[in-house]
C-alpha cells in the first residue's frame, strides 16, 4: 500500500488516515480478475480492432503520430504479443467461456471473417495447453451426431499413447471405463489423436507464420491425410451414384492425394486438426486460426446456429464438392457444406459440422467439443471429478437452426 502522506491533503495528520486504511480494507479481499472475467472484454476489443484494420484507416482519424512507421512484421508481432493479461495458466481445461456464450454476449458490432479469426487466434494464444506427462490422460469429451442422432464420445488417451479409455456402452447410467489398447493404426491422423505427447511435440515444431503453416500442413502427409481420411474411412462411404444414394462398404480406393490442396480442402484440413487435437500448443493453435484467415471462400454465417451440444455459435462456413474415386473406376461426387463453430463470446473452438447435400436431403454429421483437459485418471474430468453423462440436445435442421 502506498504511503498516504503524499496522496492525501485533507488537513488530517497521518494518524487520522485510519479512515482511509479502514476503507481500503473494505472489500479488500476482492480477487484479481481471472481469465474468464477478462476474456470477453479483450475479445470485444480485439474484434473491434481487427474490424477497423480491415476497414482501412482508423475511423478515429489521423493524428500527429502518423509518422510512426508501420511494418507488417511488427504488426503481427503486436497482435501476437499483446496477450499478457488473458487466460490463467494451469491445466488445460474446458473450453474458454465454456457453454456460456450467448447471442447477447456476442452482440458487439458487426463481425467479419477477419475479425472473428483474429479474435479466435487471440483466444488460442492465451489458452495455455499443457504437454501431458506419460502417466497422464488427455480427455477429449465431445458429442458426436450423425443424421441428428447424437451420442457421447469421451475418450481418455494415455500421454504415452499406449492406452486409451472410453465409457462402457451404454454410457447412460454406467460411467464405468473400459481400458483398451490403443488403435493399432498409428499413421497420420490416428497418430495425432492417440499419441498425445508425440503429437504435441510434432505440432510444436510447426511454423507459426501463417503462410508457412498453411503451406506445411497442406503438404505434410501427417496433417494433410486427415482431410480425406477423416471424412471417408477406408471401406465405408456413401454418396450419389447414377442418381441414387448408395452406401459403399468396400472397396474404396485410397483417396487421391492432390499436389496442392484446394481452399476447401485447406479449410477442412484445419477444421479436422482442430477437432482431432485436444492439446495443441497455444502458439500453433493461434497460428491455425491465422492460417484460416488466408483461405479464400470462407464466409461468416449470418444467421444464428447452434452446435450439436445446443450452444449458440459464431459460425464460419464454406461450400464445396468432393469426388471419391471407387476401385471399380466409378466415382461419387458429393456436395458439402463445412461449418466451423466458435464460441460467440470467446471465439474458442466449439465444434464442426459437415453436411452432404444429395437428392434434396441433408446428411449432417457433426461434433461438439464439450471439454478437453489433462487428467491423472481415466474417467475423470480435470480437477478430479468423475465424468458423468449429460443431457444431449437434438440438433435442429440444417441450416438455420
Amino acid at each position, binding site marked *: 500500500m502506498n504511503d498516504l502522506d503524499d496522496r492525501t*491533503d485533507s488537513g488530517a495528520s497521518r494518524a487520522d488516515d485510519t*479512515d482511509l486504511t*479502514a476503507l481500503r480494507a473494505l472489500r479488500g*479481499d476482492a480477487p484479481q*480478475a481471472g481469465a474468464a472475467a477478462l476474456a470477453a472484454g479483450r475479445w470485444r476489443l480485439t474484434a473491434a480492432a481487427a474490424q477497423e484494420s480491415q476497414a482501412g484507416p482508423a*475511423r478515429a482519424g489521423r493524428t500527429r503520430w502518423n509518422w510512426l512507421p508501420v*511494418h507488417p512484421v511488427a504488426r503481427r508481432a503486436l497482435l501476437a504479443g499483446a496477450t499478457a493479461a488473458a487466460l490463467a495458466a494451469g491445466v488445460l481445461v474446458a473450453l474458454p467461456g465454456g457453454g456460456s456464450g450467448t447471442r447477447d454476449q456476442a452482440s458487439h458490432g458487426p463481425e467479419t471473417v477477419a475479425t472473428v479469426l483474429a479474435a479466435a487466434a487471440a483466444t488460442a494464444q492465451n489458452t495455455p495447453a499443457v504437454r501431458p506427462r506419460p502417466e497422464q490422460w488427455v480427455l477429449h469429451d465431445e458429442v458426436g451426431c450423425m443424421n441428428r442422432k447424437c451420442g457421447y464420445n469421451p475418450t481418455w488417451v494415455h500421454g504415452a499413447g499406449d492406452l486409451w479409455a472410453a465409457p462402457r456402452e451404454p454410457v447412460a447410467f454406467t460411467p464405468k471405463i473400459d481400458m483398451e489398447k490403443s488403435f493399432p493404426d498409428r499413421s497420420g491422423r490416428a497418430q495425432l489423436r492417440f499419441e498425445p505427447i508425440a503429437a504435441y511435440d510434432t505440432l510444436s515444431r510447426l511454423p507459426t507464420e501463417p503462410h508457412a503453416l498453411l503451406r506445411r500442413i497442406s503438404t505434410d502427409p501427417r496433417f494433410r491425410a486427415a482431410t480425406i481420411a477423416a471424412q471417408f474411412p477406408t471401406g465405408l462411404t456413401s454418396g450419389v451414384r447414377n442418381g441414387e444414394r448408395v452406401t459403399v462398404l468396400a472397396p474404396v480406393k485410397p483417396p487421391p492425394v492432390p499436389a496442392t490442396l484446394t481452399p476447401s480442402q485447406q479449410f477442412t484440413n484445419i477444421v479436422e486438426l482442430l477437432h482431432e487435437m485436444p492439446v495443441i500448443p497455444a502458439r500453433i493453435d493461434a497460428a491455425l486460426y491465422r492460417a484460416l484467415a488466408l483461405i479464400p471462400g470462407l464466409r461468416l454465417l449470418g444467421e444464428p446456429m447452434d452446435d450439436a451440444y445446443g450452444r449458440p455459435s459464431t459460425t464460419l462456413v464454406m461450400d464445396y464438392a468432393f469426388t471419391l474415386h471407387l476401385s471399380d473406376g466409378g466415382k461419387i461426387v458429393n456436395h458439402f457444406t463445412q461449418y466451423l463453430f466458435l464460441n460467440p463470446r470467446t471465439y474458442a473452438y466449439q465444434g464442426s459440422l459437415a453436411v452432404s447435400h444429395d437428392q434434396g436431403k441433408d446428411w449432417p454429421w457433426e461434433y461438439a467439443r464439450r471439454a478437453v483437459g489433462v487428467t491423472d485418471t481415466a474417467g475423470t474430468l480435470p480437477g478430479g471429478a468423475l465424468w458423468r453423462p449429460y443431457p444431449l440436445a437434438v440438433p435442429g435442421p440444417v441450416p438455420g437452426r
Partner: protein
Amino acid sequence: MIAPLEHPPAGALDDADLIARSTAEPEAFAELYDRHAAGLHRYVLRRLGAGPADDVVGETFLIAFRERARYDAARREARPWLYGIAARLIGRHRRSEVRAYRALARTGVDPVAASWADSVEGQVAAQAARVPLAAALGALSDGDRHVLLLVAWADFSYDEVATALGIPLGTVRSRLNRARKKMRAALGGVDPTQPTEPEDQR
C-alpha cells in the same frame, strides 16, 4: 535475412505512444488492455460486483478505443483516462451500488462481496468498520464517492483523480475533505484497523 523491425515492440512503449501507434495499428490497443484491465476490473469489482465489473471493463476499453484519437498525448499514463471512462459507466449503476452499501449497513452481509466470496461466512468476516463505512459511502454524493474511492481503492493521486474525472485539482481536494470527514464521523469510536479489538488511538 530477417529485416529489422522499424520500431520497438508494443510492450516497450508507454501508454501514450501505444495509443498513438494504435491509430495506425488498431490491434496495438490490446496491449493497453493487457496492462490495465485487471486493475480496473478489481476496482469496479469492489464497487459493483462481479457481473457488472466484466461489462464495465469491456465497455470501458471499447469506448477508449473509439475515442483514442482525442487522447491527450501529454498524459503518458493512460490509467486516469480509463478510470474516468469507467467512472461514467459506474455512474449508470448508481442505484445498485448505493443499494448494496445500504444492505451491508443494515444486515452486515455484503451483496457485492457475495459475488466473489465462497461463503456467507466470508462475506460477514469481522471488520468492525464495515457497517458504518458502508452507511457513510451510501450517503455520499456520486462525485464525492468517485474521488474518495479512486484514492482509497485505486491509489490515485490528486492529479490523477482530477484527470480521471475532469475536474479541477481544488475540487478534488474539497470533495476528498468532505468525504473523509463523513467517513471519520461515521467511524466514530469504531476502531477501523482492528476488526475485533477496541481501537488503539494513536
